[in-house]
């Protein structure tokens, strides 16, 4: 029988490799049978209190228990939204307003915040371990593979985060492609970097599950300290990583890579932002026999829709292709914009029909039959070899450490701050700085505090400029290009 629910993979892993490590971190480790049993317990508790196909917010640190809360939600026939616990409470509330969660699952230290997000907030450590087999069975019978598995929130240009909804079917299709195309062996050991609220984690979690391997949750702090990270990879015998390029670049720059330094590491995959070839070359020199694969894709198409297996040499200044569409995925360039169709597509943004209609559109090349394409907003072209190349954005979305940021969301927060009359921002890619400018009476220090209360840290402007006026275009809009020229001319950007 074909797989219709990701839990089939969990149950296979728990049945065939019950005592193998599934998810671990330095102070905690769970086997596949423990993950199954714990998830069934959580699922039974939730199912007794919520209808199926309802959203559940997860407010926990990245941990094996957090994964059980996510999978427990799936056992209840519901879908999960992991929250970045470090984001401001006001942004969590915006997400809760959009999602209207049936429940919040949290860990003890977030009790105060969790209670503000839903009346049904439950501390995971206090939940019963006993499963209600009949109830879980009933929930499973109702399931179809078009039911949602998760909703992940990304930055929205109007200031309201957008919830990208993804179905079981899309994740199953994606993970099956990934296991085969990336030649993942049974029992592999992932070194996980991506937070669970970031969709790169989808490959980590579901490929580890499908291949009955293990997912080592590398402590976030290790990524600040390349030597510590190297030691972790060595002692944990990590054989596969799927990281954002900035994490790989930090290691490459620290000059801790040398030939033979990571004998177990066989697969290095990356996605989420442009991979600099200089970084790639340093990693390839240290791991000449490893498989390097560049991937591309926005959250809306289930993590990855194009991939390129590094098969030749590149100069440090070359651009790396994003290559070819994944199996069962079609990519069309329409006016240079990368447009995607296939099973990988999200059905839309949760509780946001207008935003959905704007991005998920009828394929204009096939008016005869409904066929939805997702317009990525990314620009692409084919090189001489027929490989797809990523060229940049057509709007004001930027990427920082793999995070999608809509400059509009920062501007919305800026303009809403007390004492700001007009505000705008631009991204200085050369200096890797977000520059914000405003007019009005606001003090910069107060403004910084106000922004911190609304925006996640990775969205905070690096430079805030107070201006008497903001330059305008002929049509009266704020002229960001001219603002940038002024700032450069006056040497305002460090």
């Amino acid at each position, binding site marked *: 029988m074909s797989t219709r629910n990701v839990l089939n993979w969990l149950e296979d892993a728990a049945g065939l490799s019950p005592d193998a490590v599934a998810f671990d971190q330095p102070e905690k480790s769970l086997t596949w049978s423990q993950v199954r049993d714990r998830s069934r317990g959580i699922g039974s508790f939730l199912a007794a209190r919520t209808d199926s196909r309802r959203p559940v917010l997860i407010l926990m640190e990245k941990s094996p228990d957090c994964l059980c809360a996510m999978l427990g939600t799936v056992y209840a026939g519901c879908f999960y939204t992991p929250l970045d616990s*470090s984001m401001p409470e006001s942004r969590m509330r915006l997400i809760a307003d959009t999602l209207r969660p049936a429940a919040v699952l949290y860990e003890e230290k977030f009790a105060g915040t969790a209670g503000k997000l839903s009346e049904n907030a439950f501390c995971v450590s206090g939940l019963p371990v006993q499963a209600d087999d009949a109830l879980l069975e009933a929930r499973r019978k109702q399931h179809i593979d078009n039911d949602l598995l998760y909703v992940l929130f990304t930055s929205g240009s109007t200031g309201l985060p957008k919830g990208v909804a993804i179905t079981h079917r899309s994740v199953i299709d994606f993970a099956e492609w990934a296991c085969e195309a990336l030649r993942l062996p049974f029992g592999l050991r992932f070194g996980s970097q991506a937070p669970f609220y970031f969709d790169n984690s989808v490959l980590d979690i579901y490929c580890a599950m499908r291949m009955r391997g293990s997912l080592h949750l590398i402590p976030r*702090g290790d990524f600040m*300290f390349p030597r510590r990270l190297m030691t972790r990879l060595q002692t944990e015998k990590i054989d596969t990583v799927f990281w954002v390029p900035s994490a790989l670049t*930090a290691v490459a*720059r*620290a*000059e801790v890579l040398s030939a033979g330094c990571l004998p177990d590491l066989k697969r290095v995959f990356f996605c989420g932002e442009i991979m600099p070839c200089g970084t790639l070359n340093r990693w390839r020199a240290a791991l000449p026999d490893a498989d390097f694969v560049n991937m591309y894709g926005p959250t809306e198409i289930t993590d990855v829709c194009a991939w390129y297996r590094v098969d030749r040499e590149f100069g440090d200044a070359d651009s790396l292709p994003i290559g070819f569409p994944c199996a069962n995925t079609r990519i069309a360039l329409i006016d240079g914009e990368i447009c995607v169709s296939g099973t990988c597509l999200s059905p839309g943004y949760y509780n946001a029909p207008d935003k959905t209609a704007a991005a998920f559109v009828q394929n204009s090349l096939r008016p005869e039959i409904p066929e939805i394409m997702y317009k990525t907003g990314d620009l692409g072209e084919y090189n001489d070899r027929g490989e797809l190349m990523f060229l940049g954005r057509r709007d004001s979305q930027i990427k920082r*450490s793999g995070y999608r940021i809509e400059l509009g969301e920062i501007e919305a927060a800026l303009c809403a701050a007390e004492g700001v009359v007009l505000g705008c921002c631009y991204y200085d890619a050369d200096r890797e700085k977000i520059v914000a400018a405003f007019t009005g009476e606001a003090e910069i220090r107060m403004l910084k505090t106000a922004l*911190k209360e609304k925006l996640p840290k990775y969205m905070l402007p690096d430079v805030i400029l107070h201006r008497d006026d903001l330059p305008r275009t002929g049509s009266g809009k704020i002229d960001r290009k001219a603002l940038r020229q002024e700032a450069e001319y006056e040497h305002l950007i460090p």
Partner: protein
Amino acid sequence: MCKMDDMQRLLAALEEVRDDVDFAGQYGLVDEGVIDSLDLTQIIAALDDAFDIHIPAGEIEPENFNSVQDMLALVRRYQGK
């Protein structure tokens, strides 16, 4: 330059990065998770600027950033180099 000056300069630079942290009285900045990777990147850039030094990537170890004393010792090693 006297000792106090460097410490004051360091604290001023750190305050620019995180004005909500009492750097002078806090130990275990890294180990206790007070500063994260974004902070660390900014702190290194701020130290480089404030003291006109270059801290090489190989020195980016937790024990060099756990307290202002640790950071000051790090800065001193690179001053005048």
